[in-house]
């Protein structure tokens, strides 16, 4: 599988740079801190919860907020990881290596995308180790945990697709990073204006576009195909745009 070869190289290149290791370390450290403070809060709340006979447990109080914070932090981190995918290769005139080989543009773009996404999956795996450590002492709502993990994986798949596309647009990695962050933030907060738009259709459209809405549904354990479809739509759109943009490199005027 030629795409896996490309993905493997991409992943390896990421791990050869200090940036990826730093990102992993910082993210893990901050989330561990949040995790511990959340756990502390749960320990304090536990007697009251028992008295109220409430339907919420450790998964809702400790784990769901962790993934919420992780999602927000990843919005800032993913642009740093995707920025070099194409732009750096273009800047160092290394795209010729791929263009001269018997590869199609689709294979090149998807290969690189898969490589970066594999890194994101590893990152998710590391984050998930923290909630799983609670299994040593208590029972978890594994269904809810799975929904949260799926939610964050889909979110990152969408983030990465947007990041890869932004990277095809420029030769400067920093420009790619800043513009990716801009797009992600806009998609995150786009529903804030939702209530203020008078038109109901427009407001609904803004609500639909918001990544936050679709992510929150999953992290509450609500598995809805329309949310999955939303992510697939974003991934496909930006992959197709990337392929077209890279193809246009050969047509430059």
């Amino acid at each position, binding site marked *: 599988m030629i795409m896996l*070869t490309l993905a493997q190289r991409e992943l390896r*290149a990421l791990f050869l740079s200090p940036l990826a290791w730093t990102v992993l370390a910082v993210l893990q450290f901050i989330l561990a801190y949040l995790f511990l403070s959340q756990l502390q809060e749960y320990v304090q709340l536990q007697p009251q919860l028992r008295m109220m006979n409430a339907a919420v447990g450790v998964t809702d109080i400790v784990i769901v907020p962790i993934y919420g914070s992780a999602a927000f932090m990843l919005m800032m981190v993913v642009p740093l990881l995707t920025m070099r995918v194409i732009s750096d290769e273009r800047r160092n*005139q*290394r795209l010729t290596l791929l263009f001269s*080989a*018997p590869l199609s543009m689709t294979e090149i773009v998807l290969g690189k995308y898969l490589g970066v996404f594999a890194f994101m999956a590893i990152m998710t795996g590391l984050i998930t180790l923290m909630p799983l450590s609670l299994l040593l002492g208590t029972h978890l709502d594994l269904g809810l945990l799975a929904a949260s993990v799926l939610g964050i994986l889909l979110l990152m798949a969408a983030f990465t697709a947007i990041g890869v596309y932004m990277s095809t647009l420029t030769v400067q990695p920093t420009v790619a990073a800043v513009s990716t962050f801009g797009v992600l933030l806009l998609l995150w907060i786009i529903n804030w204006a939702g209530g203020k738009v008078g038109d109901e259709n427009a407001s609904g459209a803004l609500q639909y576009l918001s990544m936050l809405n679709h992510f929150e549904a999953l992290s509450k354990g609500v598995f809805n195909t329309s949310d999955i479809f939303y992510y697939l739509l974003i991934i496909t759109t930006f992959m197709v745009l990337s392929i077209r943009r890279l193809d246009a490199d050969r047509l430059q*005027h």
Partner: protein
Amino acid sequence: MTAQTLIEVEHLSRYFGPIAAVNAINFELRRGEVLGFLGPNGAGKSTSMKMITGNLAPSAGRIRICGHDLLDQPKLAKAEIGYLPEQPPLYRDFTVDEYLQFCARINRIAKGHIKTAMDNAKQRCGLTEVGSRLIGNLSKGFQQRVGIAQAIIHTPAIVVLDEPTVGLDPIQIREIRKLIRDLGQEHGVILSTHILPEVQMTCDRVQIIHRGKLVFSDDVSNLNERMQSSSLLLTLRNPPSAAALSSIQGVSQVEVLGPNQFRLLHATTRSPAEAVAEQSVKNSWGLCELTPERKTLEQIFVEITSTEQHTEAAA
């Protein structure tokens, strides 16, 4: 059947905005041939190379690689090409082995053959010893060789090298020229350069490109003929008068360069060198130097392009 045609290029053009970087060029490359692409900077050499290797879409024209149209069947066509661009596309964080392994894989070499292909390429380019070193730590000459190894790893029918000897020291240049000659035995090689002696040493056929047009295309022997000197540089310890020199048979004109130095112009077909030496001994002029002057690339260009302009003006 004689040598197989590897590349056919018909009416190839490329415009950047209103500027024609390459203007309707036609040529062919056969197996076992080293074709030199010669031209001054900005003549359109690199643009042509990029189009042949599928890195740049042509504005017009057709390129067929081993019978496959580059636009209709890019994968089949590209599998037959190895390309070293002006700047070698290297991953500086990778070791030579890792890099070549990646190149072998993206060129779809079967898993079982990768090891042999890598060893072969490394051996041909003299990289056997540096396999486990990081590319970024290698000298420019070695990096250039890694670039060439990358281009030949899948034993393509055609190897395209864009200015492969730029920035190398004289010993490395000689080694790489030898490598190019070796490659020319079984592959078809296109070599782009602006160094004239390089073409004379390595190529079988030469094409001169100037302002996007092919102005000369012939065997190297014919180029050499064109380049044959039409002047001699002469230094004498006891020089006679210029008139005495110009009376020697075959000398058409004498330029006095210094008190002891002269340039003798003559017809390209017959050199008066022998007569000059004879006279010098007979009259004890004290011959110190007698050198046929070679034409430089610039002179050839001026000659070829000026005749072009003449014919154009006449037409």
